């Protein structure tokens, strides 16, 4: 275990999220606090509608909390505006989504290069090719998303998530849209690359088996933190 891993990369304090509805204010998340250390893998589990995706959006700075604070690599997200949060994401965060979220008009290679290009990185191409090779898609570089299978599209998304060597990787139900064979392949890739790159992995899933592959599991129920349990990988690393 490295020295860094003793430090929190994510600290969540009293995080609460209300949304306005026609019937009045609805609390989606209520007073959630926890922390994640560098290099750690954490699963957020809960039933549908429990608030786990909202929690992920707040952790990644995609949305802002009603109360409480998220410290990402020491920076309080509530003090940052949209532009500054985008900058934080560009520098420190990678994403994998359930619906892949590839840009349809870009090839596999270009999709992987996209975050680096947005950040102005000129060496993006070599790095992207290397990552696509790692996910087993070196023969699909010039294919468009519509020409790839679901599993292949998610592998492109994983390669994209790791470009620029992010400190944290957020994955939202990464294998939910895939068959079990492809799903397992994606999960294995995710954990392998995570370990190789020393990235912190925050995984949102309702799949208990997948959650158990992480070091810790945060259970959300009805918008509240129910418990934090240890996964099978708790003592690994």
């Amino acid at each position, binding site marked *: 275990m490295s020295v860094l891993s003793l430090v929190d990369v994510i600290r969540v304090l009293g995080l609460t999220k209300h949304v306005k509805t026609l019937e009045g204010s609805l609390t989606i998340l209520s007073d959630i606090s926890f922390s994640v250390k560098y290099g750690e893998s954490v699963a957020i589990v809960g039933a549908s509608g429990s608030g786990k995706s909202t929690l992920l959006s707040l952790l990644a700075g995609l949305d802002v909390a009603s109360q409480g604070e998220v410290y990402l690599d020491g920076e309080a997200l509530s003090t940052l505006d949209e532009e500054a949060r985008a900058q934080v*994401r560009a520098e420190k965060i990678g994403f994998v989504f359930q619906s892949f979220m590839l840009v349809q008009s870009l090839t596999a290679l270009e999709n992987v290069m996209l975050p680096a290009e947005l950040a102005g990185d000129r060496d993006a191409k070599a790095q992207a090719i290397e990552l696509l090779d790692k996910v087993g898609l070196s023969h699909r570089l010039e294919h468009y998303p519509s020409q790839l299978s679901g599993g292949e599209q998610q592998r492109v998304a994983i390669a994209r998530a790791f470009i620029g060597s992010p400190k944290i990787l957020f994955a939202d139900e990464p294998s939910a849209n895939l068959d079990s064979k492809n799903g397992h392949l994606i999960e294995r890739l995710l954990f392998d690359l995570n370990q190789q790159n020393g990235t912190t992995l925050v995984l949102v899933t309702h799949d208990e088996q997948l959650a158990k592959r992480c070091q810790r599991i945060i259970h959300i129920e009805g918008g509240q933190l129910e418990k934090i349990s240890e996964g099978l990988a708790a003592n690994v690393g």
Partner: protein
Amino acid sequence: MWVKLAFKLFSRELRRGELTIIFAAVALAVLTVFSLSSITERISLNIAQKSSDFIAADRLLSSNHAFDPQLLSQANQYGLETAKMLHFDSMLFANDEFVLGSVKAATEAYPLRGSVIIKDSLTSQNYEVYTGPKKGSVWLSEGLFYALNISVGDNVELGAGIFYVSKVLVKEPDAPFFSLSGNKRVLLNYADIPTTQAVQAGSRVFHRLLFAGTEQQLTDYYLWLKPQLKSNQNWQGIKDRQSPLSRNLDRADSFLLLAGLFGIMLAAVAMAVSAKRYCERQYDPVAMMKTLGGSRKVIRNIFLLHLSLVTVSSIIVGLTVGYVLQYIGSGYLAEFIGTQLPPAGARPWLLASFIGMTCALMFSLKPLLDLFDIPPLRVLRRNLGDTLAISRLHIAFSLLTIFVLMWIFSGEIITTLILFASTLLVIAILFCISRLFFAAGRRLGLSPGSSWSLAIATLQKRANANAVQLISFSLAIKLMLFLVVLKIDIIADWQMQVPADAPNMFIINIAEDEVAPIKQFFIDNNIHHEAFYPVFRGRVDAVNGEEFSRRLSKQEGEERDEDVKKGVRREPNLTWLDSLPKGNEITEGQWFSGGDDIEVSVFEGWQDSLDLKLGDTLTLLVNEQTFNVKVTSFRSVDWASLKPNFVMILSPNMAGKVPVTYFSAAQLKDSHTQAISQLLKRYPTVSMFDIKAQIEQAQVIIAQVSLAIGFVLVIVLLSGALVLVSQVQASLAERMQEVVILRTLGAKGRLIKLATLYEFLLLGGIAGFVAAVVSDVALLIIQQQLFDVSGRMHPYIWLLGPISGAFFVATIGYFMVASTMRKNTQSLLRKLT
């Protein structure tokens, strides 16, 4: 780095379609504006030039009395070119033959505009010169050579002088429209007038001063001249000259303007739809880019670059294609007219570029601004930001832009307002109708599982979207029907005035005993001719016993039509006829009853201006005889037609009461020249005047306008197709999803294809029907208000509208979605994810 990414995204988006529609719409608007404004500008410059040619100057001053020499010296001081002319009739003598000729004496500078066409001998080729004969020489028209039995190189006596006949005079630019001896013209040097001694005090002569220069110089000079103009001096410009075509030209201008506006309006609709759709499709990529850390600035730069690239490239393409089109068009016209059209200035280029830029910017700005506001959270909450798509502001923005564009292009706020407001009203009505229509369709109760019921269900399901589509299609079809009908009506109207076999020569001053032999002569020589009208001059002396001059002076205080007053004071040509001439319509009363009283049918313009009523008795003064005639009808007269028209037509029982000459018109071909010379030699008192130039000009203008209308029609069709394509493309993803669902549920390909075809057929048919109804009503108004044509219903468009609508919409729509239906379910599913 973002530049490279922007170009990459741009090149990919180009292939996907929406950008292509925006591109095509901007390019279409640019080329419409460019080609229309440059062609109309070139045509109007040409017409102005031609009209100047018709008076051989830019302005002229005419009088029966000599002018103060100061008028000319002052004009020269203003920098104007000037020339002097004098018209008089004089006898010519040669080889023991006497002939009365119409002499035009002009200074060296004549003609200031246009050219004189002459030839070296009767049999040689025509050519143009830009001056008149030298001192001591005369140019004679062909008729005089035959009448005097002379040839070029002989001498002729003109008045007291002897002149050398150096050329055959074929045509002068300002050959008078009505000359009593149209074929016996003499062009003389102004300096030779004293030699002829033909002009004495009291001689019947017409003086003219010609002026040419810039508009500013002419205006300045006129400001100086105006206070000292005498009542017998008449200042004439091109526009004052009553050309039978001027009204047609105004109509053509209005038509092109209207059509151009329609083209732009449709292109704008296509652009607004595509721009919105394009931006909507970018919501996910933008949300993704923001999630991946893309800053707002980078994203803004990327899409603004896209917009700039589309704008610049479409403007360049629009200008290039527009230039080529107007080059081809004007080349064709130039060949037809036989002269080059003057080049248009910078205005079309600037106007088209400006309109292209405005279109691109205004229709894309709001959707683009919305795009920059897409929250990154959309990557997790898929429908976040969708509400931005329905923006009232965008609609308001687009409408305002369309209005401003129409205004800029037309330069006429009233026309623009009428068109714009009526279109808005039509949209509102259409929206209500279509909602009701789709709602009513639910009760049709067709058996489930048939293609028709599927088609109707699809139409109902997208009632809102379909209402919008229906409005767009209806507008497009409406505009097309408009153009087709106006084209048919206007052109038919004009061609009726100048049919292919229109007479090109008027023959006047035929004595009663000459009518029969001349008729026989025409038959023998196979010359097509019109009826022989008896003509006599007469003046209205009194109305219901009240002296007419007193009646007029009573009205001096009121505003009366000056032309009519002049017309009443002079002695107009009168005739008697059995039946109503073509092109005239009775507006009030009845055609002659055949009773004992002499009846008169009066031009309706005189009815209002002179307070005439049916049953009034007019006292006509003809050669010292007076006749009391009863007004039994009023007629409309088409003065624009190149046919004999009369202010007053008397009943046939007038025959034999007054001495008359006869008047006819014939269509002469080049092969008839010799025969006509014989005719003129045999009947020296008969005169002919040539209206070939007027007929040719009319035909040229009809050709120009037909071409322009055809061109505009193509543009409107293209714009309509673009609207359709943009609409169908916007619904393509949804359709794909439906096809997938239907296929998955086991629907056969044929069912889906037929359902799609029926859906478009229905949509097009309904749109076409609504368009036909709206068009016909609007056409009635527009024809009367804008084109001054009597409005009529057009039953054929009630059929043409739905059929063409169904065909047009079904063809384009079906082919656009056909590729979707050919794909297998799996690949469609993949495209949807």
